[in-house]
C-alpha cells in the first residue's frame, strides 16, 4: 500500500503531465495552470540552487579563510541589479561586459581549434590508396561535400562571370549536401522527440501512476471534447484545413 506522500506524488506527476499534453488538443485552462506553475517552479528552482552553490562553495569557506577574489566577485556581482534602477541602469553594463568578455576570451581560442583548424585537418584525407574501393569513395565524398558546402556559404562573389559561374555551380552542389544533411538530421530529430514522448509516457505508465493516468486522462479529455462540442454548436462549423493551398 502506497503511503500518502507517494500517492500525492504520483497524482501530481500525472496531473501536471496531462495538463500540458492537453495543449495538443487546444488552448485550455489546464494548460494555463501548468505553464504558470512550471515557469514559476523552474525560475525559483534555478535561483535557489545557484544561491546554494554560492553559500556552500564560496561564502561559507570564506568565513573560515578569507579570499579577497571571491569577495570582490560577490561585490561586483551586485552591479547586475542596477538594471532595475532606472536612473543608474547603465552600471549594469559593467557586469555584463566583464561576463561577456570572459566567456569570449575563454571559448574563442579553443573553439578556433575544435571548430575550425581541427575540422579542416580531419578533412585532409587520402583520395586513393585507402585499401578498399568504399574507403576511397567515402573519402572522396567527404572531401567533396565539405568543400562544396563551405563554398555555398561564400556570399560576396556573384554567381556571374568567368569566376562566379563555376562557383555558382559548386555552391548548388553544396546546397544538395546540406539538404542530405538536413534530411538525416530531421530523421534524428523525430527519433529524439519520439523518445522524449515515450519517456514521459513511461513515467505515466509506472505501476503507481497508471491508475491516475486513467482517471485524470478521462476527466481532462472529457472536458476538452465537451467544451469543443459546445463551441461547435455555438459557432457555425468552420472548415479546418491542415494543408495550405498550393
Amino acid at each position, binding site marked *: 500500500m502506497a503511503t500518502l506522500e507517494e500517492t500525492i506524488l504520483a497524482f501530481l506527476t500525472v496531473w501536471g503531465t496531462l495538463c500540458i499534453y492537453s495543449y495538443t488538443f487546444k*488552448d485550455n485552462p489546464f494548460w494555463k495552470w501548468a505553464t504558470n506553475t512550471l515557469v514559476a517552479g523552474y525560475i525559483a528552482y534555478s535561483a535557489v540552487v545557484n544561491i546554494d552553490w554560492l553559500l556552500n562553495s564560496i561564502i561559507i569557506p570564506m568565513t573560515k579563510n578569507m579570499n579577497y577574489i571571491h569577495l570582490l566577485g560577490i561585490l561586483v556581482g551586485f552591479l547586475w541589479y542596477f538594471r532595475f534602477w532606472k536612473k543608474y541602469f547603465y552600471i549594469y553594463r559593467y557586469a555584463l561586459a566583464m561576463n561577456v568578455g570572459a566567456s569570449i576570451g575563454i571559448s574563442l*581560442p579553443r573553439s578556433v581549434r575544435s571548430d575550425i583548424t*581541427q575540422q579542416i585537418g580531419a578533412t585532409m584525407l587520402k583520395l586513393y590508396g585507402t585499401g578498399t574501393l568504399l574507403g576511397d569513395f567515402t573519402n572522396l565524398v567527404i572531401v567533396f561535400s565539405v568543400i562544396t558546402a563551405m*563554398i555555398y556559404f561564400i556570399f*560576396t562573389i556573384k554567381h556571374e562571370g568567368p569566376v562566379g559561374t563555376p562557383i555558382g555551380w559548386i555552391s548548388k552542389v553544396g546546397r544538395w549536401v546540406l539538404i542530405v544533411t*538536413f534530411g538525416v538530421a530531421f530523421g534524428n530529430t523525430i527519433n529524439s522527440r519520439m523518445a522524449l514522448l515515450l519517456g514521459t509516457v513511461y513515467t505515466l505508465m509506472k505501476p503507481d501512476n497508471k491508475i491516475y493516468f486513467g482517471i485524470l486522462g478521462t476527466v481532462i479529455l472529457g472536458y476538452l471534447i465537451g467544451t469543443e462540442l459546445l463551441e461547435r454548436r455555438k459557432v457555425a462549423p468552420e472548415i479546418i484545413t491542415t494543408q495550405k493551398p498550393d
Partner: protein
Amino acid sequence: MSLIVKGRLFSGFFLLLSAIVILMMIEWAKRGRKLSLRRIAALDAIDEAVARATETGRPVLQHGGSDPSGNDTIANFSIMNYIARNCARRGTDYIVAARSTAGLPVIREIVSGAYEAEGKLDVYDEYHTIRFGSPEQFAFASFFMDTVATEKPAFTFMAGGLSGEALTLCESAVLAGSIVISGSSGQLAVLFAASDYFLIAEELYAAGAYLSGDPLQMGSLSGEDYLKIFLVSLAVIGIASVSLGSRWLFDIFNM
C-alpha cells in the same frame, strides 16, 4: 621552454589572422567599398510575401528575437527594419511579437524609426504593433500561437534565437495560412523542412547585411569569405599532399 604552449601556435596564428582580416574588411567597407552579394532566394520572397499580405489585407507578423546579443538577433533586427519600412510604405498591418525584455526598447526604436523614415509616423500605433509575450520559452510560444490564431497573418518572419519551440511557432503560422520565412543557426533541419523559405545560418547574416547595407555587417561578411577561401585552399593543398603521402600540413596544424 618555448614562449608559446605546444600545440597552440597555429590556432593562435589563425585567431590573429582572422582579427586582422575581419577588422580590415570592416574598415574598408566603412570607407565606402562597394560589395555585391550573390542572390539569396529567400530575400526576393520577403518582398513577394509582403506584397501578398498587402493584397489580402492581412497583417505581417515578425518574431522579435531573443536577447540582443547573438548574430541571429542582430540580423533579425536588420531585417525587421526592412520589413517594417516595406509595410509602412504599403500601408500593411505590421506586428512584432517580442520575447526579450532587453530587446524590447531596440525593437521600439527600429520600428518607430522605420515608420518615421517612410513618413508614416501618424499611422504608427505602438501598442498595436509591438506586443510583448513572455521571456519564458513555452509561455512565449503559446502567446505567439495565440497571436497567430487571432491575427491570421499572411506572412510570418521568424529569426533570432529560435530553439526547441521554433517548430510549434512555424507550424501554427503555416496552419493559419501564412507564408513562413525563417532563418536560424540552430534547429536547421526542422525549420528548413517546415518553413516555406529558410535562411540557413550564415545566409541569415548575409541577408541582414544585404538589406541593411550596414558596412559593419557587409565588411564582416567579406572578411569571413576571404578566411573561408583561405581555409578551402589550405584544405585542397592538404588533400593533395596527403594523397601524395606527405603530412607536412598536419604538422603545421599541430604546432
